[in-house]
């Protein structure tokens, strides 16, 4: 851990330069430049179809970009499968639809990757899994299957599953959009705690309350471009571009 924190201060966690991506003829990401320092918390918002999910999915190569470069934790992204897997070891991801493995128990969901990817002994991996399940306050459900849990519980398990790999950065892809309203808070609470512990985070979310309390920077995207980028206080109180103003009035004006 000390070696990681030693290099932590100089290299940025994520660097994107001139990133472009097309789905067929559709230009989904346009000239994206973004640098994320270690320990930074960033919230990305924007209308649907603006490319915000695609952007963070490029960071762990769930989507492939066609132009530009991405450097994650000092490792430049290439087509090489080993390189991609190496990057993924440092990057945790939480999905909108949780994507827990339904055929495995909660405990197995969390201990699977430490056992098979990091080659940890089963006992050690399970102890680690229990430790993180306790942190997201769901340890008592460890032996249930995902299908027996509520949406909020499943999403907390998904966060614990990611944390078990000791990621240096966490990507959240609309983590509360598929949840019933009364379950959103339990997931956001866990995310706030994670932010307070210093985790580097990129969150695609429409939870503006979360953005105000936690984010160091808020990024507004529209039509594949980063339109506006600012600290939350000025972002919400004094938006500069017309599109940002319109978007904020649409999501906050009811």
């Amino acid at each position, binding site marked *: 851990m000390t070696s990681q924190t030693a290099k932590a201060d100089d290299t940025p966690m994520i660097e994107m330069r001139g990133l472009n991506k097309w789905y067929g003829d559709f230009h989904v990401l346009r000239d994206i430049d973004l640098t994320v320092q270690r320990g930074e918390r960033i919230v990305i918002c924007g209308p649907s179809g603006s490319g915000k999910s695609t952007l963070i999915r490029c960071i762990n190569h769930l989507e492939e970009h066609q132009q530009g470069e991405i450097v994650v934790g000092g490792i430049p992204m290439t087509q090489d499968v080993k390189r991609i897997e190496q990057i993924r070891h440092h990057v945790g991801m939480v999905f909108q639809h949780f994507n827990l*493995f339904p055929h495995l128990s909660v405990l197995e969901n969390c201990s699977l990757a430490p056992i098979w990817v990091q080659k940890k002994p089963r006992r050690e991996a399970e102890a680690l899994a229990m430790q993180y399940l306790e942190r997201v306050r769901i340890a008592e459900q460890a032996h249930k299957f995902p299908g027996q849990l509520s949406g909020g519980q499943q999403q907390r398990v998904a966060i614990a599953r*990611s944390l078990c790999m000791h990621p240096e950065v966490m990507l959240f892809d609309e983590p509360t959009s598929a949840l019933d309203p009364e379950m959103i808070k339990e997931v956001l609470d866990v995310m706030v705690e994670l932010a307070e512990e210093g985790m580097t985070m990129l969150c695609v979310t429409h939870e503006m309350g979360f953005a105000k309390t936690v984010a160091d920077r808020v990024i507004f995207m529209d039509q594949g471009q980063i339109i506006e980028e600012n600290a939350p206080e000025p972002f919400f109180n004094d938006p500069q571009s017309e599109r940002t103003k319109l978007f904020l009035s649409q999501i906050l004006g009811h």
Partner: protein
Amino acid sequence: MSKLTLNTTPVDARPAPKRSIGAIAWLRANLFQGPINSVLSLLAIWALIAGLTPLIQWAIIDADWIGTSREACSSGGACWVFISARFEQFIYGFYPSELRWRVNLTFVLFAVMIAWLALPRLPAKKLAAVLTLVIFPIVAFYLLHGGSFGMPAVPTHRWGGLMLTLVLAVVGIVAALPIGVVLALGRQSKMPIVKSISVVFIEFWRGVPLITVLFMASVMLPLFVPTEVDMDKLVRALIGITLFQSAYMAEVVRGGLQAIPKGQEEAAAALGMGYWKRMGLIVLPQALKMMIPGIVNTFIALFKDTSLVLIIGLFDLLAIVQAALADADWLGYSIEGYVFVAFVFWIFCFGMSRYSQYLERKLHTGH
């Protein structure tokens, strides 16, 4: 004008109302619910009685069970004496009778291994799987074929009956499933050569009838391999059946792979798992579970298709019963012969079907 509704008295949970039970109530609710239902029920009951009575009369009440020759069959019903007189041949084929303990031992070992694998109460499943898939085939080969360890060799042309049917079916099932999984993965591969080889293989074997495959295996294959390589006829049939069924299995497995949401593989990838771990730990376990009905369906089809080997001169259960029908001592008892064959096939296929239903229930984890 207040529209407030407020209810602060909690309502205690009450048990659900009892459903009416009792034979009369059940009959009225299920069979005689209105005039049309009643007429249909009566018709169905009449048809069942009219159809089953003569069958039971023939197969059980009027049947002859005891004896050694056709003289014992005089009562006009089924002559099961024919089956019992030829029973050993139906099971073992032309396997020398003093060596049949080797077949019995193989059957018993196989039954033990299957029970060990299938019954959840028994421990050490991994050891059982290794024993069944690696050690048992070797032991079974030496037991059945012999030729070493002081056991006289029994060439495969003397194998027959139920024993041969089981050898064909079990080898076919055990080999076709893994080959089918590999082909299904190959067909979904992003690598163009792997993908096209898989597609061509699957479409070729699915496009030809099994009879043609067996004919080609027995007649044409020897034309292509050098004469000094004398491939056993049974081995050729086994290869033909396995390749044929693995193509079908591949399509069943592909259906299962496509039913797994893309998010599953993405989540596994995001955790740093490589292709084989994503497939082996996440996608395939879910896909295979979903595909149990389709896989067992293919197994059952394979089991029944083994009877086609009679056209290349292998005497499986059906072929050996047919051969016995041509025996001058037992002419005219073909119905008994075919009923017996059908019954034996049905027992095995029904067993597989029930076990698959049990597996589905057991593996259901509430999603």
